[in-house]
């Protein structure tokens, strides 16, 4: 409960709520798309750099390999886990099932970033290498989603799609900044730390303000979201998040990193996957998958998922 209050009263989450309230009151407040894109690039570069710098300090260790493998498995597997619920309980056809499932297998960078800020500010510090896991989990789910959508089809992956999976902009930026952080280390990071470390939480506030506006507007304008699908949008993060935390705990991650793996499993993509789905499954309803991932799951994770998964991770860690 304390964790929930601490989350709710942190500046980033309050700005997120402000955005949601403004959109609900149909205020004309808005952040230009270009700036939102810029803040998103900034947050990815910053989180990548900070992760890399930490790894340069702490060393990689064997944890990283286990975490990478676990992340890869979760990203590839979660779409198959959620697909039956989407088609049977949610009533989606095969193509929309695949498209939505891909979103849940992938991750939300900002959910991870917000969690790492909130956890970190109370001394519950996620290991730096989790950024690599974040990058690793961005795109494998796209392939799983496509497999679900067109199981029969022979030619699953075009060259274009493979490039999207391997060299997707956010994957490249996250991994690239991570590598740069590892190369430059704490000393090389010092001159850029005012922008990338000191400015970080403030930019996160402004970005979450915009995300609050976007999420609420998605919910208000959606035509495709049924009550059942909205319920799944809340159930999925709880189930997948718990699965992620337990996996993390079992492979020996410390509690904060296990919680982070939970956050990754719980969160749904709204950057890498939607564009890929629009390209590969144009028949799927973009309004639907964005409403679920941005309108339902993202707010749930920011407000409830972050404290919840920390609680589960601390509990699971204590059991072992």
């Amino acid at each position, binding site marked *: 409960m304390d964790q929930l209050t601490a989350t709710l009263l942190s500046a980033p989450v309050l700005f997120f709520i402000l955005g949601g309230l403004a959109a609900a009151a149909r205020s004309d407040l808005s952040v230009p*798309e270009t700036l939102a894109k810029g803040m998103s690039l900034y947050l990815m570069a910053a989180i990548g750099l900070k992760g890399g710098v930490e790894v340069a300090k702490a060393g990689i260790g064997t944890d990283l390999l286990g975490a990478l493998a676990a992340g890869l498995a979760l990203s590839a597997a979660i779409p198959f886990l959620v697909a039956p619920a989407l088609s049977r309980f949610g009533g989606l056809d095969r193509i929309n099932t695949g498209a939505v499932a891909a979103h849940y297998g992938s991750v939300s960078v900002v959910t991870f970033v917000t969690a790492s800020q909130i956890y970190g500010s109370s001394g519950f510090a996620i290991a730096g290498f989790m950024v690599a896991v974040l990058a690793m989990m961005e795109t494998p789910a796209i392939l799983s989603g496509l497999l679900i959508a067109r199981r029969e089809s022979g030619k699953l992956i075009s060259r274009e799609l493979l490039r999207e999976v391997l060299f997707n902009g956010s994957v490249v930026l996250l991994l690239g900044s991570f590598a740069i952080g590892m190369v430059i280390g704490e000393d090389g990071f010092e001159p850029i730390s005012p922008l990338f470390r000191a400015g970080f939480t403030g930019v996160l506030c402004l970005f979450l303000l915009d995300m609050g506006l976007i999420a609420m507007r998605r919910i208000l*304008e959606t035509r495709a979201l049924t009550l059942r699908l909205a319920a799944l949008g809340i159930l999925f993060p709880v189930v997948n998040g718990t699965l992620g935390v337990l996996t993390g705990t079992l492979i020996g991650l410390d509690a904060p990193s296990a919680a982070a793996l939970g956050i990754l499993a719980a969160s749904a993509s*709204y*950057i890498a996957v*939607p*564009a890929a789905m*629009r390209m590969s499954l144009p028949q799927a309803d*973009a309004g639907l998958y964005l409403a679920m991932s941005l309108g339902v799951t993202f707010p749930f994770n920011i407000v409830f998922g972050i404290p919840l998964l920390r609680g589960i991770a601390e509990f699971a860690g204590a059991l072992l």
Partner: protein
Amino acid sequence: MIETTPRERIEVLVDAPLAPQLALLAQAAGITGHTLIRTESGQGRHGKWSEDLISGATAKYIFLTIANSERADAFQEALVPLLESHGLVVLRSTVNVVRPDRF
């Protein structure tokens, strides 16, 4: 007076991530050029959309191309299978151009 020649103007409202595909189809139809025009927002039977740089999924462009009627036909033919799946709006009209050999 300058001589002008009629050519076909095809405009396709298309989702941003699908625009490169249109360019390939146009090329396959022998069309050498196109221009993408920026839109801001819109509304149709599937609801509203507006520019969206975060997910990159719901922005749209107007794909404008000028071609002779033969190539325009070929391009339009190639669009048929995408009309429903990609939710395209396709407009065709006639314009007069100056250096007709370009198109």
